[in-house]
């Protein structure tokens, strides 16, 4: 019997783990498009407020609700998630080129530190989740819950699913960090970091679509 395979190659010559993550991302595309479709179908069909972009006065109580979406806060969270993608790709580059790049200056040492970029990505992801927690809490205080109207149901389901994916990504990053502290991540670990990076960037591109379709298009 031959020695156990170090790499999980498929008949195409590609590593099966990378094929699997791309197939998973493809299926995730379908999941998120179904959630986005639901949001768009229900858009503008809520009978009662609060509404995303318009003010509303409750005819029974006379209570005045302003447009509920907070674009400045969401723009900041979008920027944070975009930067997290940069940090993730720098973490991958640091792992790929560990030991092969000069690290004479302070900046070169920082650029080549996978721990630094993995921490930066995890912190940016956690900050994004903090923004989302703030947004959800403020919406509930302003009278919008998942049961209030069609907008609330589809909005919380879509953004909640995305938030759950970000949470899973942060846990994944912390796992990579623990490996990095335990034995150090190097070029031989390129694939496991690449797979985590692909998942993280996918979470980012989903938010790019959500930010435009849910928050910016009135």
């Amino acid at each position, binding site marked *: 019997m*031959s*020695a*156990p*395979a*170090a*790499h999980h*190659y498929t*008949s*195409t*010559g*590609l*590593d099966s783990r*990378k*094929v699997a993550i*791309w*197939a998973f*991302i*493809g*299926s995730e*595309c*379908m999941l*998120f*498009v*179904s959630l*986005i*479709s639901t949001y*768009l*179908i229900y*858009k503008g069909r809520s009978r009662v407020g609060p509404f995303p972009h318009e003010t509303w006065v409750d005819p029974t109580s006379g209570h005045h609700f302003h447009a509920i979406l907070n*674009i400045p806060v969401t*723009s900041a969270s*979008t*920027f944070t998630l*975009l*930067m997290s*993608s*940069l940090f*993730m*790709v*720098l973490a991958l*580059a640091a792992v*790929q*080129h560990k030991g092969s790049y000069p690290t004479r200056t302070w900046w070169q040492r920082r*650029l080549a530190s996978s721990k630094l970029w993995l921490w930066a990505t995890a912190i940016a992801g956690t900050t994004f989740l903090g923004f989302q927690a703030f947004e959800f809490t403020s919406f509930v205080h302003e009278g919008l819950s998942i049961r209030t109207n069609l907008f609330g149901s589809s909005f919380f389901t879509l953004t909640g699913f995305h938030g759950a994916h970000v949470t899973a990504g942060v846990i994944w990053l912390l796992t990579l960090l623990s490996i990095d502290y335990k034995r150090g991540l190097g070029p*031989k670990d390129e694939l496991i970091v690449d797979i985590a*990076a*692909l998942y993280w*960037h*996918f979470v*980012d*591109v989903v938010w*790019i*679509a959500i*930010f*435009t*379709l849910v928050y*910016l*298009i*009135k």
Partner: protein
Amino acid sequence: MEHDTPHSDVAPAAHAHEETHHPDWSVYWKVALILTLITIGEVWMYYVPAIVASRAFVPGLLALSALKFAIVVMFYMHLKYDHKLFRALFTGPLLIAASTLIALMFLFGHLSAKL
């Protein structure tokens, strides 16, 4: 920077020569700058009433969003440089999903009302 994915001794004989070319660090920073500028442009459009009222508002935002999406997928997810099978695994389901979305929009009258 160019690297070959390591080949194992026990890899199948038909193992394709998997070669990927990842961009330099400086490219990643430039891509981040472009993404930031596009996002600023999108938010700016949202706050200009004349643009919001124009017919170009929604198509413009969708185009900018699609551009950002494509940039991240091509450069950060390395799909521009990776094996064509990965491209197929991603774009195939994405096209099916996008077609379903457009069909649903027509079915529920969101697009047919505008055409």
